[in-house]
């Protein structure tokens, strides 16, 4: 409890201090419009005090009293800031009152020359100057020219720029030129220091004296500009220090060796791409003997056939926009599944995650949003699906590992839900009994229902009808397997006996990748559902009513009206999920820590950078992750800025 209290106190001090500074700055700049003289005094005093505090703090000037003590306890530490505040604050006050130009000029020069004389006479002997001719002339002239040219280009008074440039140049030429160390107490050193200070004072005074007392418009401008930085400044500071600067440093680190010392060019990237753990296509040929491939071919052929049918119906030659979409998506999904089980390595795993999670989470979210729309207790059911969003990914990984994916020795009862079901299925479908008959009946029934739908739809739309016919293939195939070999988790031993065959969901490559994805799908489906549900509800009722008038069925209304209307939102959901999936870390870290062929970029980066101490390799992996995300984010952000 003590720690919480002390934490709260430190948060309070930090937030309170920040707020006090912020409000103080606001109150000061409120005076710009209300009372410009007061504003001038306050800002002049603060600037004068700060300047003198810096000079005094770096021991450039001697103190009135030479006692030693800790800042800010001793009063003599306050002497110089107070003097600075009085001189500059007083000068600024006078300037804010006087409109006459020659008088302003005199006041300004007097203020700054006074300050510079004070500094010149109290400057510690070690800081006295030895003027050198060349820098003394080159710096002021060069910078004055630059200042004048800049102001001329910005259509401002070139003299202002010349004076500012000349002032900075003079400081560089004198104080930057060299300290007179040998003859510090000689009269030349004293004179030259005096000249340096007084000329600086004259230049600055002349520049400040050339300003006007601001009129109402100028005051408003000063207020708005400074206020903009008060409001935006803190955020910009955080973004610069926490985001922009580290990103640049990471890119620099990625072209240095693993200790961060030596420049090594693109070696880190080369080694990442050469490493078999990251990029391995050696077993890709297995793709052609994959048992999934026939199904890909089947759905592809079905899609082409349906496209021809639909083309005839709509008289458009070959038309893929409608019924053929389903088999096409099935073929694509199955092919990517087959591809990623044979293309191994971190990079391919990451891509698999992106394809799998984005596709499944978006389409499941869309399905629930559609099913839930207008149903009874819609919000309750939706909050069940949405709830995993509130659970941490660490927690979700543990839940799934323990409750769903637990795999035990085949002789023992399974404690994980999925293995229990899987082994039970294997048990009941390998021997003839009631269980096998029921399973058979379920899949045959599903096929029969689809055939019935085919017959019903045939008079209306041949393409839709044949889609139903195509879809009878998977349940028929499963029914065939059930009748012959049986389905589910079983293994046939050497002696011909049948034993339970649980799946090692978490540790069995390459499919463990898919099972880990399922955890993220479990989380992200709720997100997709919420956004898509809101989008479905925002489709104007007029459209749907008009379609009903024309005799459209519910499914026609969904595919022809709702879906095209919400297509942009589906794009948003998919890209957002994609970015989240690309960065997946927690799930892999907690379940496998990247072992068993389940490594992903973010975890590889974490291990390299923070566990193995290879900052170069880690940075290269991080930059690669950035490069993968960038195109999607550019898409997202261009959409957002268009909306805004």
């Amino acid at each position, binding site marked *: 409890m003590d720690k919480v209290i002390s934490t709260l106190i430190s*948060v309070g001090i930090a937030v309170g201090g920040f707020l006090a500074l912020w409000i103080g700055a606001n109150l000061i700049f409120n005076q710009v419009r209300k009372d410009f003289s007061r504003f001038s005094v306050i800002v002049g005093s603060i600037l004068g005090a700060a300047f003198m505090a810096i000079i005094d703090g770096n021991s450039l000037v001697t103190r009135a009293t030479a006692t030693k003590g800790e800042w800010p306890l001793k009063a003599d530490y306050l002497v110089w800031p107070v003097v600075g505040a009085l001189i500059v604050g007083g000068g600024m006050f006078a300037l804010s009152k006087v409109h006459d130009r020659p008088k302003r000029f005199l006041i300004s020069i007097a203020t700054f020359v006074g300050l510079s004389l004070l500094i010149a006479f109290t400057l510690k002997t070690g800081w006295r100057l030895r003027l050198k001719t060349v820098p003394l002339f080159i710096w002021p002239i060069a910078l004055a020219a630059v200042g004048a040219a800049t102001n001329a280009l910005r259509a401002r008074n070139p003299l202002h720029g010349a004076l500012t440039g000349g002032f900075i140049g003079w400081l560089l030429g004198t104080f930057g030129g060299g300290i007179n160390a040998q003859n510090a107490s000689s009269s030349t050193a004293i004179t030259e220091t005096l000249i340096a200070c007084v000329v600086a004072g004259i230049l600055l005074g002349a520049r400040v004296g050339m300003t006007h007392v601001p009129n109402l418009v100028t005051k408003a401008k000063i207020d708005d500009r400074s206020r903009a930085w008060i409001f935006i400044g803190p955020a910009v500071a955080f973004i610069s220090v926490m985001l922009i600067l580290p990103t640049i440093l990471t890119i620099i680190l990625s072209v240095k060796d693993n200790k961060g010392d030596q420049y090594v060019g693109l070696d880190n990237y080369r080694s990442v791409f050469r490493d078999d753990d990251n990029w391995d296509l050696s077993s890709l040929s297995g793709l052609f003997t994959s048992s999934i491939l026939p199904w890909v071919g089947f759905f592809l052929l079905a899609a082409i056939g349906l496209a021809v049918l639909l083309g005839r119906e709509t008289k458009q030659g070959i038309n893929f926009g409608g019924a053929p979409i389903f088999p096409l998506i099935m073929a694509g999904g199955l092919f990517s599944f087959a591809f990623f089980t044979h293309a191994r390595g971190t990079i391919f795993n990451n891509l698999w995650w992106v394809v799998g999670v984005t596709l499944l989470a978006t389409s499941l979210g869309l399905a*629930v949003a559609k099913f839930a729309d207008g149903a009874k207790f*819609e919000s309750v059911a939706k909050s069940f699906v949405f709830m995993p969003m509130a659970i941490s990914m*660490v927690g979700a990984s543990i839940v799934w590992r323990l409750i769903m994916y637990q795999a035990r020795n085949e002789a023992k*009862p399974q404690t994980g839900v999925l293995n*229990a079901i899987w082994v039970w299925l294997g048990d009941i479908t390998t021997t003839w009994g009631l269980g096998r008959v029921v399973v058979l009946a379920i899949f045959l029934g599903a096929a029969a229902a689809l055939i019935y739908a085919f017959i019903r739809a045939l008079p209306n739309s041949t393409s839709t009808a044949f889609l139903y016919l195509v879809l009878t293939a998977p349940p028929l195939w499963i029914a065939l397997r059930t009748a012959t070999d049986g389905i589910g988790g079983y293994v046939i031993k050497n002696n011909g006996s049948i034993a339970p065959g649980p799946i090692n969901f978490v540790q069995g490559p390459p499919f463990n990748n898919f099972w880990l994805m399922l955890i993220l799908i479990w989380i992200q489906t709720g997100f997709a559902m*919420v956004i898509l549900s809101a989008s479905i509800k925002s489709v104007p009722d007029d459209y749907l009513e008009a379609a009903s008038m024309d005799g459209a069925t519910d499914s026609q209304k969904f595919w022809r009206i709702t879906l095209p209307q919400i297509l942009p939102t589906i794009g948003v959901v998919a890209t957002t999920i994609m970015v989240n999936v690309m960065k997946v870390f927690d799930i892999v870290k907690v379940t496998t820590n990247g072992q068993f062929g389940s490594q992903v970029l973010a975890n590889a980066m974490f291990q390299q950078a923070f566990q193995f101490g290879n900052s170069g390799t880690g940075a290269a992996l991080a930059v690669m992750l950035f490069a993968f995300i960038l195109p999607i984010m550019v898409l997202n952000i261009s959409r957002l800025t268009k909306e*805004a």
Partner: protein
Amino acid sequence: MTIASSKKGRAIDRFYGALSSVPMWIFALVWLVPTFGLMINSFRPKDSQRNSGWWTLEADGLGERLSIQGYRDVFEAGTTNTLGQSLLNSAAIALPATIIPIAVAAFAAYGFAWIDFKGRKLLFISVVAIMAIPLQVALIPLLKMYVGGAHLTLPFLEKTVTLVPGWGVQGQPISVWLTHTGFAMPFAIFLLHNYIVSLPKDIFESARIDGADHFTIFWRLVLPLSIPVLAAFAIFQFLWTWNDYLIANTMLGANGFEHHPTTIFIANLAGDFGKNEHLLPAAAFVQAFVPLCVFFGLQRFFVRGLLAGSVKG
């Protein structure tokens, strides 16, 4: 059409209406299985958990074998830290990491929305574009920065410029707050800006005519009017920081044991080679309790936040 037939028609409609919500309910219940199973298992003793599935409740003799022993044990488990301590740590991380970004982002959002200055649009677009930077890209230098600051060695001149001084906050919660604040900033500014910029222009003009300055307008007008969007962002950020594992593990994982939040605690518990596996359900439930309360209590705001800016990077 008679009254009877229309009544019958309504009954059929109702039947089909109920039938059409069946897929949704099946889906919702399937989605609930992992959480439900976890809840049941958190009340089952070690042996039951290890030897039988949570659905075999009757085998345990229901009433007598269910107990809260797991919850009692989990508060005493842990090698470097206790669950109670890590809950406090999570709060000590999540609360400041929610409050600080809200303050800073609200100022900036107002500045971008209602203060006229040169380059406003360009700066705003740049801030939004920074959402593209993934967390991972900044982590390595951030950790180094918290230890020793950021320095740049200028080429040719061989001079080192200190960009950020070393704060020496490694292994302290403040390093986590600062990181969360920085990373929340672009999204927070974007979300709040979109809301604040849509406030009616008239109120600003009339306030201006009455002599109100930017500070007064922000404090008296904009903040009270923006409560809904501030709440939405607060919930978003709280859930994100409470559930965060990557930032906390990077900043505190190796050298901040006494500051470990709950996510690291349960991840470590899960990594103990199955020794404490029977305590995980209870621990995971305790960890999820706070976000679930926030979630169910304030779901409306949360959904609004999601809808307003579904782009958190």
